[in-house]
């Protein structure tokens, strides 16, 4: 299991109320549920709340990620730092998942990582907010994964993050930040021994964001990296 630094946890009764709210959240009651939550949860427990939302909900319930972001938008009225908190918890959790030794072998952990990718994209790019390199450096993640034989985790994750570019006025093609990452993806795509399903991830991403993969210039970054370790 994953545990972050100790956060103060509300008493069980409050936790139960939060669970109930999330089990019954829908687009038609966001306003009411936001009001309800703001009344039962003290600001001291915001960190616990953010952790719960990220790890227990957003990460698992991919189908409701957009709903949860809409919920956060309502919650901002009561706690203006809630978005920032949730975002930093999300980055923290991604780093934990990426560093798991077993991420190469565990399909379920890779599913969680992919879900975190789409969640981060929806939280940031889709809302026209940048992903800062100090928080999450996608190019570095890909290069590092290349050297460490972990592209199987890093490419699908990156593709899920970038998927949200299609919903963004700012980050859609030909945004240079996006195109630079696509160039690296193209360079990886051209690797002779890249697994077919990873090539497919890149193709699907390009299709989703309406980019012609053939017209993407491959970068030349891999030659400066240590070659992947073989096992």
């Amino acid at each position, binding site marked *: 299991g994953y545990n972050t630094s100790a956060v103060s946890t509300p008493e069980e009764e409050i936790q*139960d*109320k939060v*669970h*109930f709210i*999330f*089990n*019954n*959240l*829908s*687009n*038609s*009651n966001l306003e*009411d549920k936001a009001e*309800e939550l703001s009344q039962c949860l003290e600001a001291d427990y915001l960190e616990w709340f953010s952790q719960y939302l990220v790890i*227990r*909900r957003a990460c*698992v*319930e991919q*189908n*409701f990620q957009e*709903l949860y972001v809409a919920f956060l938008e309502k919650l901002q009225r009561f706690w203006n730092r809630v978005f920032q908190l949730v975002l930093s918890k999300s980055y923290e959790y991604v780093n934990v998942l990426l560093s798991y030794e077993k991420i190469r072998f565990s399909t*379920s952990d890779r*599913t969680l990582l992919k879900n975190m990718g789409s969640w981060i994209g929806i939280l940031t790019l889709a809302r026209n907010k940048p992903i800062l390199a100090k928080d999450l450096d996608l190019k570095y993640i890909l290069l590092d994964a290349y050297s460490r034989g972990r592209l199987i985790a890093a490419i699908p994750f990156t593709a899920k993050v970038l998927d949200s570019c299609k919903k963004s006025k700012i980050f859609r093609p030909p945004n240079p930040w996006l195109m630079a990452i696509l160039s690296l993806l193209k360079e990886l795509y051209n690797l002779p021994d890249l697994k077919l399903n990873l090539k497919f991830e890149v193709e699907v991403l390009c299709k989703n964001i309406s980019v012609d993969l053939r017209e993407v210039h491959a970068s030349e970054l891999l030659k400066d990296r240590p070659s992947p370790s073989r096992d």
Partner: protein
Amino acid sequence: LMDELTLKGVTQYYAYVEENKKVACLNAIFSKLQINQSIIFCNSVNRVKLLAKKITELGYSCFYVHARMAQEDRNRVFHDFRNGACRNLVCSDLFTRGIDIQAVNVVINFDFPKNSETYLHRVGRSGRFGHRGLAISMITHDDRLNLYKIEQELATEIAPFPAHVDKSLYCE
């Protein structure tokens, strides 16, 4: 037809309750578990409507659907539920192929069915592997023999609801 449905991947529990404590029991379930979407079964059309009304007042997000509704209306409700417009669906017995909504990770028998075929239709999944979920049945004194019978007939195990449910059993 029953051959096509499987209980594989479904962890089955029962909770022993009095009839007038069922809503309280439902509240407890919804305060403890991590539910993506749920389906809640009742044994009659009337009880579907009553329960849906009751829990909507209590702040649940729910639609209802039952066998006496026009097919067209059922389809609409079902379509919206599948798209996530609400989180829970209260219904009578109208599934013949098991539930094939991926997001439904919890099925609740608010009323316990009378026979094993109905139980299987409510709780069983149609063939796809890798789908985990919970089925929780509320059992009153009058249901206790049926519980035993259904367990025997389906050669399955329905365990008492534990104090803590392992998330890996129903949250993927």
